[in-house]
């Protein structure tokens, strides 16, 4: 039984329509929102370096800052995010994000140990800037809840990574390495700052 020639294109079209998409790592719904949110702070170098710097500085400051920062930073960042969602623009938010890498990197390289409230105020101000940037993108995100959960967890994980690296300060060579890391972050921050200006 052979198919008439004039019907073959129709059949081919039908077969093409019937085929599903080939996805190597299929993501949809919850997974898509979470993965996008999780990758957002990791793929943005300015966010990534600032978050790691917060962890490094926390390790330098020791207790109670080391355990307080991963708890308070996401909450203050969320407040900044709410401001971003509600609409009021935060003047110089990009400059603030770039300045966070410079300032936090400088704190690490100079091993500055201010009183806890000063450190909290500084980190909190930068958390507002980072949160605002995330918040303005949130309403357009697919699966806002999983997206925000992803970026909050990624942010916290970057802090923890920074703290883990920062614990190297207990060894003399480690302290030099951590401060060198702070210098690199501050240098990168200057680059971001020039671009933002």
């Amino acid at each position, binding site marked *: 039984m052979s198919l008439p020639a004039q019907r073959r294109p129709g059949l081919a079209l*039908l077969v093409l329509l019937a085929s599903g998409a080939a996805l190597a790592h299929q993501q949809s719904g919850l997974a898509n929102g979470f993965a996008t949110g999780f990758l957002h702070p990791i793929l943005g170098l300015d966010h990534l370096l600032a978050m790691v710097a917060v962890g490094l500085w926390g390790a330098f400051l020791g207790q109670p800052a080391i355990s307080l920062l991963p708890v308070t930073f996401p909450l203050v960042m969320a407040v900044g995010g709410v401001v971003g*969602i*509600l609409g009021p623009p935060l003047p110089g938010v990009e400059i603030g994000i770039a300045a966070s890498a410079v300032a936090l990197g400088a704190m690490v390289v100079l091993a500055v140990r201010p009183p806890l409230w000063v450190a909290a105020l500084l980190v909190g101000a930068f958390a507002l800037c980072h949160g605002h940037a995330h918040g303005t993108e*949130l309403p357009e995100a697919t699966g806002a809840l999983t997206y*925000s*959960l992803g970026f*909050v967890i990624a942010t916290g994980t970057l802090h923890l990574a920074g703290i883990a690296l920062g614990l190297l300060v207990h060894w003399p060579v480690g302290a030099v390495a951590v401060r060198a890391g702070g210098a690199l972050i501050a240098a990168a921050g200057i680059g971001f700052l020039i671009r933002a200006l």
Partner: protein
Amino acid sequence: MTLRNAACALAALLFATPCLAHGAFPGVNDFQAGMLHPLLVTAHLLLLIACGLLLGQQHRGPAQAMLGGLLAGLLVGLPLSVLAASWSKALSIACLVAALGTSLLVTSARPTRRLTLIGLLAGLLVGIDSAPARDPWQAVATSLAGTGLGALLMVCVIGGALLGRHRHWQRIGVRIVGAWIAAACLLVASVELRRLGII
């Protein structure tokens, strides 16, 4: 011509994919789908994790009172879900706000009465917001029973894993997870309230 039209209609029907409210897995029965429901609805998941974290910070008596409250809330809320399917958006926001409040309380032990109330509220919200998209009443009842058991098990497992583990670093870990949940809930509740024009 009529035969060709019929063939086209048949082909179109064959290409249609099932419409799933929460992306249920094929081959899963009603009870199992119900049990998976709290895991698949992120607002419920966060609220129940927050309840589990809070439960894990308490002593045995208050923890049991909180579980009792949760069970009572689920027993009242799950049957009501059939009537409340149209309130889904408002209930989701309420779950987020409840998760936000609960996750901020995970830092230490709380009075028994307050814990019972939190458990009751969490059970009510999760229960009422779990309307299954099924028709026969047997399927609905089976699915709701699965949801109740799934929610209760989740809180028991998380809380049980943390009960009596009050070392300093364990408490810090609980606070970090609580802060992450609170931050995510605060952001999304704001987005949802903004979309509804409330704020």
